[in-house]
């Protein structure tokens, strides 16, 4: 797997590079998609990343927070971050007007092992903001469609109004080269066009060949439990289940100690871990 090291400020690993917010796309309540462009043209050209990697985003005057890259490296030029407003840095970001400047450093983390995943079926299971890193992977595999076998996306939200990237994902329903399964837990108005029910119910609609499938799971903690159960029921090997973990982060580069989980640092050894890694690390789940 190619692993890109930090491109920002070669001799200072903490140096943020300036980037401009060129578009703000409101998503659901308290979630926005920010399109960013590096100020430095050289950075714009040289910044490459793997799906599943993240950046440290600085709001000048407030602080730094790790955010997954939501765009795909197959579509260079802009960088998209999908952010939920939840604390100091994210609130400050939401207060910034269009065309403001923020700081970025990265990309960090291991990202998905996309090369090892080639020539396999992919089962992508997302819940809530878990779609942020998985959207990067999704567009990456769709833009490299011939390298992968079957692609299935399962994504659940509580209600239609809470589905991230809803219109973009609904447009995938028509694609014949993948199976896009979108579900909402509740549909009181009866307007949701496809499945209703929790995300695990979507497993009723798919065949899984455990020998040649990678499952990729990212979502809120409770989702993992139920999805993992389903995957193990279908005999998926534990080292073919990939999950993205979240821990408190400060440095993003394996120094500050905040993101430790068992013997590893989420920021450099992860955030993508196999389920096998997970059960071998105390504290992981």
């Amino acid at each position, binding site marked *: 797997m190619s692993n890109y*090291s930090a491109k920002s400020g070669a001799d200072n690993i903490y140096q943020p590079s300036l980037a401009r917010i060129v578009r703000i796309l409101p998503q659901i309540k308290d979630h926005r998609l920010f399109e960013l462009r590096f100020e430095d043209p050289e950075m714009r050209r040289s910044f490459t990343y793997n799906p599943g990697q993240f950046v440290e985003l600085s709001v000048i005057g407030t602080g730094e927070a790790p955010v997954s890259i939501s765009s795909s490296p197959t579509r260079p030029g802009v960088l998209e971050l999908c952010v939920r407003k939840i604390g100091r840095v994210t609130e400050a970001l939401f207060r910034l007007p269009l065309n403001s400047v923020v700081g970025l450093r990265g990309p960090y983390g291991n990202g998905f092992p996309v090369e090892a995943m080639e020539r396999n079926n992919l089962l992508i299971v997302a819940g809530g903001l878990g779609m942020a890193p998985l959207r990067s992977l999704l567009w990456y595999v769709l833009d490299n469609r011939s390298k992968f076998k079957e692609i299935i996306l399962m994504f659940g939200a509580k209600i239609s109004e809470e589905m991230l990237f809803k219109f973009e994902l609904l447009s995938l329903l028509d694609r014949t080269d993948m199976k896009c399964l979108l579900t909402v837990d509740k549909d009181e108005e009866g307007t949701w066009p496809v499945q209703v029910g929790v995300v695990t119910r979507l497993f009723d609609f798919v065949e899984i060949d455990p020998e040649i499938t990678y499952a990729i799971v990212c979502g809120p903690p409770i989702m993992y439990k139920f999805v993992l159960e389903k995957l193990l029921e279908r005999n998926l090997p534990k080292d073919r289940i990939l999950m993205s973990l979240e821990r408190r982060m400060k440095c993003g580069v394996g120094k500050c100690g905040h993101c430790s989980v068992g013997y590893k640092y989420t920021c450099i050894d992860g955030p993508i871990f196999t389920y096998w890694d997970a059960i071998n690390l105390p504290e992981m789940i």
Partner: protein
Amino acid sequence: MQIVKLPKENLDKFVGSLSKFGEIHAPIKKDENTYLFSKIEDLSKIELNYNRTILPPKKYFLPPTETIFRFSPEKGYEPPKDNLNRKYVLLGVHSCDIHGLKILDLVFSGTYVDNYYFTRRKNTSIIGVSCIPDDMCFCRSMETDFVEDGFDLFLSDMDDSYLVRIATSLGDDMVRASQSLFKEVDKEDIAEYKRKSNEMKNYFKIGLELYNLPEIMDLEYESKIWGEMGEKCLSCGTCSMVCPTCYCYDVFDELNLDGKTGERRRRWDSCLFKDHALVAGGLNFRKERSSRVKNRYFHKQRGFVAQYGRPSCVGCGRCIQSCPAKVDIVEVITKIRSVDYE
């Protein structure tokens, strides 16, 4: 390694000569039984016969707090122009603390090199000194009672003189600059050195057994000891501050009065603090004190072994000496290892 002899009556002259290699810092006595590394203005204040300093030498390389950037909306983030390049001579560092620095080197290097740390590291020469363990030292158990590298010179106390190991070309320059103060090592010195060396083990009052410790810790992951320690520990974080190998830090932005410009700073942090693993929205991965104490011990004695091949404790005894709740690392590990303790 080249070894020469420095008679003690020449020590002051030699130390005086070191100021051309950098600002001299060495242990001084603060109170009865408390020592600290400090800038030396008066050579007579230097205390080379000391058990341990309150803070380890890490404070010179990872200061308790430091500015990593100044920021402004116009210029973004700029590293401070402070003089990271100032030269220092750190005199009187014990073997365990040199190992502590070598462990920090592992952490701050790798794919991402922390140059705030390494610039200071490069600009600071280290002169080690031998010591006699007290009742809180267990460096021998941690295999840090002897050090092969990580210093420029190392002084071994021979009562009337020091045997001086010269480990680097800079160390050699220091000796050469005052060549006349040094003598050759003779047969008697060698015999005396061996005698002292063989006696060393008799001084240790406490120790722990490393053999199979990682596996035993895995087996005792659910041990009731963690609950007991959680009850005792106050989450004050002192043990992390005084530890030569604890490196956790927090980063925060501070605004100036203009509300626009400011500084990004970092400061020592502790995994014992309640919010260490707290994420936005309120989820805390180590909410219980017991889980935080357990994490500290697991990281030092278990996790670090998995990552870097050795424990990250050097047996300096500082956490034992400083803990207000009398949490004692040797006692904890001894209990975990004991067959009778379930």
